[in-house]
């Protein structure tokens, strides 16, 4: 059966071999080359088949196929829905689509009914008949499956859920609303129009000017102005230039780039082609981390479909511009997110950074001028072209324009994918959008920027999200991971955790990073074991400054940040560890003990059941006790006891 991407009749001639410049616009508003009401009607019908207009009797059921919902069981839902819809005789009225991450991952598996915008949470296969019969057929949403806040208030509409209300989803606009494995959906939603207008109405210099005027800065961490980078690469005389998309996303706690690649891969591809045109490059690479097989799969499909439609390859849309795109899978090394290490890795070498003179924009991949940008940076590009640099520059703050996507995780109620305008405060992010702390616990810190970033305490939550404010606080925008910690998380142990990560991931090229992180880790381990002394704190600070000042690449120069920020904002916790040999949060294993309170224990045996080393003995219904010689201090008994009979000392 013919559909959206096909020709309306034999008069349409577009193919990669015989390209037509109107191809993209024609799908939505065509045909342009001839005037035939029948063809026009066909085009309209095909467009509507993807996005039924409001008021029509047709609906779309979008099942979230993001990694998190998928792992929670969503991948099997479309088939089950289809089956039930067929049985209910609604095939003509409802189409089921597997989409990318809808954002509120915490409540997954999610499904969204469009055009009404009604969101279902925690869907199970056995809920499908109810949704089909009561809602899709009967017109009445199934209340028990709707989003419900802690007070029990029900929110049927996605747009009214507090998690979404304060967001401004522009880069994520299509993510969750289109089938990422079908280029037709991207084009039907307005995709590749920016590329068309670039190829046929803007010079490369004008494209660069537009990006410069928008104020777009790199979303991969450092915030370098994107337009300036492109201009630098274009200026270097060369017959060959490269475009690279950094999809290494090595920060543990980050999943924005994964979600974009899984949910809207063509936006990234389109941004890369536009960059290629602007800097005069005919070849690009997407460097994706190996831990993201689903993202690689969706990207591969997207690239194939873009080639088949003539949007990648030779003579794109007949413009004379050629661009080829490859996927390069990483192999698991955090340092490969660093630009020069990443290029070394594409060249088949160990990912070791090189000195940045000359810059990559002069001598990058295979010695050629190269522009390397982050996934989200590229995804912003088509938007800026379509809506204008002025529109973009109106969002955000003076120095940081546009929006930023964050991956919210940790002890916050609503974990998931969030997009907010720059300048939003951290408090809004954590409390208004994230819903605050889980389980009535107290907020302690948020970690932003991953291993290169820092921990920010409660009294600094009014900080606006922009590059300079965060750097000023000793943290970093980073790529967008935000991990929330509560009173049960120990900040010394958190610092130890990050140092053990950077120490492991240090490539070993330079001494300050290789040895410095190791020494810092030794000290932190000593402190968490209760063997630290007060002088260790100043030693840590000193070492941290040295490693920061003298390391070769960004991994080393930022590795001390988690330690230095915790020392600055949570010094009392360090002091408690070294002076009193106590960890109030109870996370440092060596510093804790567990005992069972005889007067509270009812002898239910729950603790003995979960104890991994059988350290708990006792008769049923009689007080139990812990053999401290056997106990490995895992704390499971403490967590499991419903009678507060296990005490942590």
């Amino acid at each position, binding site marked *: 059966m013919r559909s959206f991407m096909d020709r309306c009749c034999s008069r349409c001639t577009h193919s990669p071999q015989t390209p037509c410049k109107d191809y993209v616009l024609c799908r939505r508003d065509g045909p342009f080359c001839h005037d035939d009401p029948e063809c026009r009607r066909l085009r309209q019908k095909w467009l509507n088949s993807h996005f039924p207009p409001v008021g029509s009797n047709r609906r779309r059921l979008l099942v979230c196929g993001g990694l998190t919902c998928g792992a929670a069981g969503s991948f099997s839902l479309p088939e089950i829905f289809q089956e039930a819809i067929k049985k209910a005789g609604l095939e003509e009225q409802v189409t089921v689509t597997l989409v990318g991450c809808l954002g509120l991952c915490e409540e997954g598996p999610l499904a969204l009914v469009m055009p009404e915008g009604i969101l279902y949470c925690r869907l199970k296969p056995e809920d499908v008949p109810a949704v089909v019969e009561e809602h899709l057929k009967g017109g009445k949403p199934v209340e028990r499956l709707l989003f419900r806040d802690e007070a029990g208030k029900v929110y049927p509409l996605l747009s009214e859920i507090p998690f979404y209300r304060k967001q401004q989803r522009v880069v994520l606009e299509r993510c969750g609303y289109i089938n990422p494995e079908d280029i037709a959906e991207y084009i039907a939603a307005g995709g590749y129009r920016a590329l068309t207008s670039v190829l046929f109405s803007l010079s490369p210099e004008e494209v660069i000017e537009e990006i410069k005027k928008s104020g777009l800065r790199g979303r991969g961490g450092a915030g370098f102005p994107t337009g300036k980078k492109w201009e630098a690469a274009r200026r270097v005389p060369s017959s060959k230039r490269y475009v690279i998309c950094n999809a290494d996303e090595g920060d543990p706690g980050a999943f924005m780039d994964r979600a974009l690649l899984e949910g809207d891969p063509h936006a990234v591809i389109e941004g890369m082609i536009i960059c290629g045109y602007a800097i005069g490059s005919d070849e690009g690479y997407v460097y994706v981390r190996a831990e993201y097989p689903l993202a690689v799969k969706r990207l591969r499909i997207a690239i194939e479909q873009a080639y088949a439609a003539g949007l990648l390859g030779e003579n794109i849309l007949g413009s004379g511009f050629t661009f080829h795109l490859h996927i390069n*899978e990483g192999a698991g090394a955090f340092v490969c997110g660093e630009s020069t290490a990443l290029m070394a890795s594409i060249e088949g070498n160990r990912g070791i950074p090189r000195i940045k003179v000359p810059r990559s924009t002069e001598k990058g991949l295979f010695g050629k001028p190269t522009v390397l940008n982050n996934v989200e940076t590229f995804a912003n590009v088509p938007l800026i072209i379509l809506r204008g640099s002025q529109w973009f520059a109106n969002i955000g703050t003076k120095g940081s324009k546009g929006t930023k996507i964050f991956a919210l995780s940790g002890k916050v109620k609503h974990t998931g994918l969030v997009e907010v305008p720059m300048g939003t405060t951290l408090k809004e992010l954590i409390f208004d959008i994230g819903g605050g702390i889980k389980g009535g616990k107290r907020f302690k810190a948020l970690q932003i920027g991953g291993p290169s970033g820092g921990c920010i305490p409660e009294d600094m939550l009014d900080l606006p999200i922009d590059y300079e404010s965060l750097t000023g606080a000793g943290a970093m925008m980073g790529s967008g991971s935000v991990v929330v910690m509560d009173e049960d998380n120990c900040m010394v142990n958190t610092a130890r955790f990050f140092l053990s990560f950077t120490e492991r991931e240090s490539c070993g090229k330079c001494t300050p990073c290789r040895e410095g992180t190791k020494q810092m880790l030794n000290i932190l381990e000593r402190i968490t074991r209760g063997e630290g002394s007060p002088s260790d704190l100043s030693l840590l600070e000193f070492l941290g400054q040295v490693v920061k000042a003298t390391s070769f690449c960004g991994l080393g120069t930022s590795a001390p940040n988690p330690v230095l920020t915790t020392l600055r904002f949570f010094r009392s916790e360090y002091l408690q560890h070294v002076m009193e040999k106590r960890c109030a949060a109870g996370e440092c294993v060596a510093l804790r003990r567990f005992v069972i309170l005889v007067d509270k224990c009812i002898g239910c045996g729950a603790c003995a059941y979960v104890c991994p*080393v059988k350290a708990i003995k006792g008769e049923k219904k009689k007080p139990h006790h812990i053999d401290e010689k056997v106990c490995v201090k895992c704390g499971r008994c403490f967590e499991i006891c419903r009678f507060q009979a296990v005490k942590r000392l």
Partner: protein
Amino acid sequence: MGEAILEEVVRSYRGRPEKLIAALLALQRHYGYLPEPALRTLAQELGVPLSKVYGVATFYAQFRLKPRGRHTVCVCLGTACHVRGSEQIFHALKRELGVEPGDTTADGRFTLEVVSCVGACSMAPVVVVDEETHGRLDPEKALALLKKY
């Protein structure tokens, strides 16, 4: 069968040293690890010294030089999983399987591994068994998971 994949990899990347990592990934996907004889052939055909092949194979966390068990149990120790207690899960699995990360149980059933984030942070703590991601775990749920494989 094993030889066929080697031939195919060699055919597509012969004389292209920059394809070393892609070639290693392809071999590992097939064998589950990187057998030494295959590495020797690869070095020759791609035109890179064996020492460099070894250097690359040991630099990247994804590559294994030892055969793996029938199932790979991979515990996420990334930040989001860490703050939600992944270390306890790791210790529980380590104790149960009796092996260190990277090693395989004596019966060849499980290989224990660790990873820093698989991007499923919203459902932390996470364990990936083979290709399947399991979230919102605690030590008991993680141990129960093993029974399914």
